[in-house]
């Protein structure tokens, strides 16, 4: 019986559809998580950087991204998919060997689409509050095709070199998604440079309730992310679900504890950030470890990511929303700890990849740990270098950063001509608290405010 002869399972399909919806919802969740952290004047620009990726990659993935990532391997090198699936040709209703043979291939495709959407959106935290919107869009498109699609092929496709040759395992994307986004974030933070006023003026989160809302949606959606990666409503999915919740819980506690210890106050932002760090770290491990070990992974990730953020704030790197410290460090932690804590017993029934892996603490020795490390060591530099290259080119051609005046005015007004909040009553008359810091032009005719609020002169940014 070939895989495509397996009858479809309505139960498995139901779960993968629900999971896909949950993962899609994570991207707005990320938008709010990030949006709450930035200053009032940049909240729309920040939200937009995630939201518009749902549009951009949502279309690109169908057109070509899926084919590059999951199309039949080019020459068997394990590096990239071919163009057989362009426009979703040949991606049909039948079962598919990739994940869960009992669900339609199209279900696997759309589930993966949600991953392809959120990964580039994660990077945007590194250059918050200063990116020009036009070049930003090109960056996202290029990154999706030049970085995400190949790396997803290496790690997730059964013919990818990391999956098939190295036999590194990555249940739901610790390497392919979080390490990948973290490395890109490092490159981006360097390329974009520091925000005006960095370390000179406070850049407090403008709405911490929005941060918590975002983190909550992320936690909720992450059940789809990890448990949906089982491709079936199977015991493995149940276990992935359980360890996801457990690791998030442990990491939230750990981060709150660290902030309490180091600053004297248990931080609410820390609870949200900690939960995300735990979710990141459990992602690669979620199909392979048991609940008690999830507590360990979560707690370790919470502590390490806290320390990474703290260390980062002492450097001069303006990775504004700490993508490197949370997704890079958290993803790496999870990828490596998978090699430590994986236990074959947990993976019974994992489809396709990674079944039967035993890590360091389960009699597997350093073998799997090593494979995991290779995965990380391959993905991180690739992502870093290509990201640098893309941004360098874009910077030379268009400039990737807004002008200083636009940065002072904020992305909302300068890039989008909109302001997020009008709280002061009926229109601008009573809009006293809504003092928008508009930018000024020394020797131009129009006044600063006029310019900031007027349509720009017909040119894309």
């Amino acid at each position, binding site marked *: 019986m070939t895989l495509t002869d397996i009858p479809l399972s309505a139960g498995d399909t139901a779960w993968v559809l629900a999971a896909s919806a949950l993962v899609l919802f994570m991207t707005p969740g990320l938008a709010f998580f990030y949006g709450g*952290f930035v200053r009032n004047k940049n909240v729309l620009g920040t939200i937009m950087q995630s939201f518009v990726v749902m549009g951009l990659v949502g279309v690109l993935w169908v057109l070509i991204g899926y084919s590059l990532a999951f199309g039949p391997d080019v020459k068997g090198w394990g590096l990239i998919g071919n163009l057989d699936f362009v426009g979703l040709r040949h991606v049909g209703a039948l079962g598919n060997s990739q994940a869960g043979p009992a669900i339609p291939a199209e279900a696997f495709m759309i589930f993966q689409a949600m991953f392809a959407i959120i990964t580039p959106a994660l990077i945007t935290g590194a250059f918050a509050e200063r990116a020009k919107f036009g070049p930003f869009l090109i960056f996202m498109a290029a990154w999706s095709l030049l970085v995400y699609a190949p790396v997803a092929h290496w790690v997730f496709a059964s013919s990818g070199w990391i999956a098939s040759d190295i036999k590194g395992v990555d249940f739901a994307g610790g390497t392919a998604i979080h390490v990948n986004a973290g490395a890109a974030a490092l490159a981006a933070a360097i390329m974009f440079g520091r925000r005006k006023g960095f370390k000179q003026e406070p850049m407090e989160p403008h709405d911490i309730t929005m941060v918590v809302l975002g983190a909550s949606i992320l936690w909720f959606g992450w059940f789809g992310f990890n448990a949906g990666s089982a491709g079936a409503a199977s015991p493995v999915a149940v276990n992935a679900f359980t360890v996801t919740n457990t690791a998030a819980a442990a990491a939230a506690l750990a981060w709150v504890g660290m902030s309490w210890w*180091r*600053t004297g106050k248990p*931080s609410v*932002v*820390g609870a949200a950030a900690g939960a995300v760090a735990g979710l990141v770290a459990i992602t690669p491990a979620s199909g392979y470890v048991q609940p008690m070990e999830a507590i360990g992974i979560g707690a370790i990730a919470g502590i390490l990511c*806290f320390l990474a953020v703290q260390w980062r*704030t002492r450097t001069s790197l303006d990775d504004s929303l700490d993508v490197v410290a*949370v997704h890079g460090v958290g993803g790496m932690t999870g990828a490596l700890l998978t090699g430590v804590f994986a236990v074959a017993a947990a993976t019974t029934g994992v489809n396709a990849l990674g079944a039967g892996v035993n890590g360091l603490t389960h009699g597997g020795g350093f073998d799997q740990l090593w494979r995991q490390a290779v995965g990380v060591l391959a993905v991180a530099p690739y992502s870093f270098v290509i990201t640098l290259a893309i941004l360098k080119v874009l910077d030379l051609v268009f400039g990737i950063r807004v002008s200083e005046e636009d940065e002072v005015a904020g992305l909302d007004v300068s890039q989008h001509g909109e302001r997020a909040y009008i709280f002061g009553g009926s229109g601008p008359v009573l809009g006293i608290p809504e003092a928008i810091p508009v930018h000024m032009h020394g020797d131009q005719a129009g006044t600063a405010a006029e310019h900031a609020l007027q349509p720009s002169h017909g040119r894309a940014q």
Partner: protein
Amino acid sequence: MKKVEAIIRPEKLDDVKKALADKGFIGLNIVGVTGRGVQKGIVHAGRAGQAYSVDMLPKVKLETVVADKDADEVIDIIQQAAWTGNIGDGKIFVSPIEQAVRVRTGERGDVAV
């Protein structure tokens, strides 16, 4: 008439309002300001609790217009009620008001305040 403007700590506002009302000074206005003085504050921000020193702190400005003869009493009431003895307690300024009008009745002068 005199306008008495007092820039005080927000947490002292209730005490000041009460102290004024006890002596019969009801009419007043409050406006939120951000003030700079000798005092500095510290704010925590971000995931690892980075601390920033801030040179501008939220204050409350209380404005009340009173008859000339009442100005000194009002100053004293406010100064006592707003006092903590620490840097950042604020200032009181007095300026002349030449005319006051009650919109409802059109009355002018001391009776209007």
